[in-house]
């Protein structure tokens, strides 16, 4: 669960990143500081070397020259030891360097030897090793053991090394002699350690504060999400009227909230529509059921004549038929809603279809004294013939029923571009403005109760619209109350492939 939480994930990544960056930065800083300090030390060693070099060279040459005549120098060992008179032991009084017997020292050598004595007061020491790695010269402040170089160097080469608390500069002379100038870097080391500790402390502090800050920020960002979740949960439990707070719709979360609200609104409306539909449907069915129940209850209340029974049965039959019509229409709509339109398309002569529909409604037209005119262009499309006939019959029936005597219904069939257009217009009562936008919806009738007994279900136009749209077409209506109405059905003449009709 913790692993799933965004907050914890952010924290983990944030923390890891913070630690990484801080570590890298502080390490670099420490490393830089170390390099700086060491280079300062190295510089001092370098200049010391230059100063000391002449003396060392002299000593090395001396040693070389007096080989055999001199007692061999001490082997490497502990403690202070002296080589000829050039070097003074630190605890003895300094005497100016005496000229060695029989040899005049040059001024730079004298200077070097002076420098050597001053060196002893510092932490810089120097040691010279001959090719047999014996010490030829050393200052008194040199460490007890001075290691020879690990690998030989070429003449004139200088090399630095760090060895157990000492930084040494090794200068290689001809014939494998080497001059070592070194100094203790324990101070540096200690200072660097302290620095490291301080940096560690700073690093931990930075990471800690960063994590806290990050935690707080993440919480702030996540809170709206938690709010949205809570609201969505309430909605999922059934209260579709809930909406999410949008504190300022411009942020990403604000947009998400707005989007969710929009979705919930649509869901709510859909459910309302469903509820309304169910109410309307049950209402439509209740009336014929009431008739049947009333008539039968009445018929059974006392002994009746055959004629009375027959009348009652006829009423029941009519109501049964009415219910059948409504139920069938509802089922058809439900099927179409579910996408199962089941069109049986074939080549269809639209003019023929219209004529057949007109023929079908003729008795009704005659009864109402309504005349039907038709202007039909021969036009063939791929369509479900029976269903189109149903649509036309519905439109014609509506036109006839909503007309008074002497009115006329006009049917036009023509092609407009790649569409087949059928117009059914009348000059009768028209459709009231209030319900004009809703005529294609279920159970909407021009006059709420009229013609229910004549078999009208209020579903005809809904079904017509569904059929037309299933063909890829459209249906529309325009009307002025009192002046009549016009329904326009547009159907695609064929399918378009690469812009051409096939």
């Amino acid at each position, binding site marked *: 669960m913790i692993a799933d939480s965004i907050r914890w994930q952010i924290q983990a990544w944030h923390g890891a990143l913070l630690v990484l960056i801080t570590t890298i930065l502080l390490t670099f800083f420490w490393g830089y500081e170390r390099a700086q300090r060491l280079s300062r030390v190295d510089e001092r060693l370098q200049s010391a070397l230059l100063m000391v070099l002449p003396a060392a060279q002299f000593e090395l040459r001396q040693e070389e020259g007096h080989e055999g005549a001199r007692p061999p120098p001490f082997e490497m060992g502990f403690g202070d030891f002296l080589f000829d008179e050039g070097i003074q032991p630190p605890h003895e009084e300094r005497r100016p360097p005496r000229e060695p017997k029989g040899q005049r020292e040059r001024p730079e050598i004298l200077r070097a030897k002076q420098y050597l004595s001053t060196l002893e007061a510092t932490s810089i020491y120097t040691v010279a090793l001959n090719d047999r790695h014996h010490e030829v010269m050393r200052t008194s402040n040199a460490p007890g053991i001075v290691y020879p170089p690990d690998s030989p160097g070429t003449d004139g080469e200088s090399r630095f090394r760090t060895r157990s608390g000492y930084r040494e500069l090794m200068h290689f002379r001809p014939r494998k002699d080497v001059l070592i100038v070194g100094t203790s870097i324990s101070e540096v080391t200690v200072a660097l350690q302290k620095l490291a500790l301080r940096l560690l402390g700073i690093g931990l502090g930075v990471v800690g504060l960063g994590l806290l800050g990050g935690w707080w920020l993440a919480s702030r960002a996540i809170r709206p999400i938690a709010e949205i979740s809570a609201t969505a949960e309430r909605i999922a439990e059934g209260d579709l009227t809930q909406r999410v707070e949008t504190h300022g719709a411009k942020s990403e979360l604000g947009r998400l909230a707005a989007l969710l609200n929009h979705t919930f609104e649509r869901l709510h409306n859909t459910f309302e529509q469903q509820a309304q539909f169910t109410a309307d449907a049950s209402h439509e069915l209740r009336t014929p059921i*009431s*008739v049947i129940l*009333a008539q039968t209850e009445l018929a059974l209340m006392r002994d009746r004549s055959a004629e009375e029974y027959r009348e009652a049965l006829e*009423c029941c039959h009519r109501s049964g038929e009415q219910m059948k019509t409504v139920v069938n229409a509802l089922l058809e709509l439900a099927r179409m809603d579910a996408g199962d339109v089941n069109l049986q398309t074939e080549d269809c002569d639209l003019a023929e279809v219209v004529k057949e529909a007109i023929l079908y409604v003729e008795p009704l037209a005659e009864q109402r004294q309504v005349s039907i005119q038709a202007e039909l262009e021969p036009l063939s499309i791929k369509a479900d013939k029976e269903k189109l006939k149903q649509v036309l019959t519905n439109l014609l029936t509506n036109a006839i029923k909503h007309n008074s005597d002497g009115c006329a219904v006009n049917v036009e069939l023509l092609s407009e571009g790649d569409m087949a257009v059928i117009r059914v217009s009348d000059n009768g009562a028209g459709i009231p403005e209030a319900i004009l936008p809703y005529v294609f919806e279920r159970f909407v009738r021009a006059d*709420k*109760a009229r013609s229910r007994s004549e078999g009208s279900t209020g579903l005809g136009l809904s079904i017509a619209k569904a059929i037309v749209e299933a063909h890829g077409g459209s249906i529309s209506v325009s009307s002025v109350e009192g002046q009549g109405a016009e329904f326009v059905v547009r159907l695609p003449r064929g399918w378009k492939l690469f812009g051409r009709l096939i």
Partner: protein
Amino acid sequence: MRLLVIEDEKDLRAALEKGLREEGYAVDVAEDGDEGLFKAESWDYDAILLDVMLPVMDGWQVLERLRHKKSTPVLMLTARDTVRDRVRGLDLGSDDYVVKPFSFRELLARIRALIRRSAGSASSVLELGTVRVDTAKRVVLQNGGPVELTAREYALVEMLAFRKGKVVTRTELYDHLFAEEDQTLSNLLDVHVCNVRKKLGKDFIETRRGHGYIIEGAAG
């Protein structure tokens, strides 16, 4: 008792009309709201059965307008059963709200209740001395024994019994005992009064000359 049935569904209207007539009511009918309102305002019906989904003018409007002028008991008869519709109907001034499909017998009982209430009578049994009128069973008993009355005779007795102690004019009796299509012979009323007196006693119904008839109900 005279009833008005305002219902546009032809078969249902016919069934109601027939059934109520057989129960002894005088019944007028209307097919749409306009016609219904006109009739309701013109006569003092004992109860009105009003459908909601009516052409021309819907039941809500009829009720609302009617209530400006009359307090006739109204029973709404409708397929609209949502709570909202019921509340609306009752608040607009109807006295009962019956949802279709309904049981005819229940409908009759509710109509009887409405009429009983509007007559100010709490009980469905009216005691008039030795005569007892059971308005629920629609029978009349005298000294314990049932008395055979025709539908019209019963209606006459019931009406006068509900208004015990008050004079009922001939016009009122006509208006409440006969429907639109019945008003034919003007002395039909006298015939019925005469017959009732024969069956229940000369003094059961008293004549107040120039005013009307009355049932005192104290003596027998």
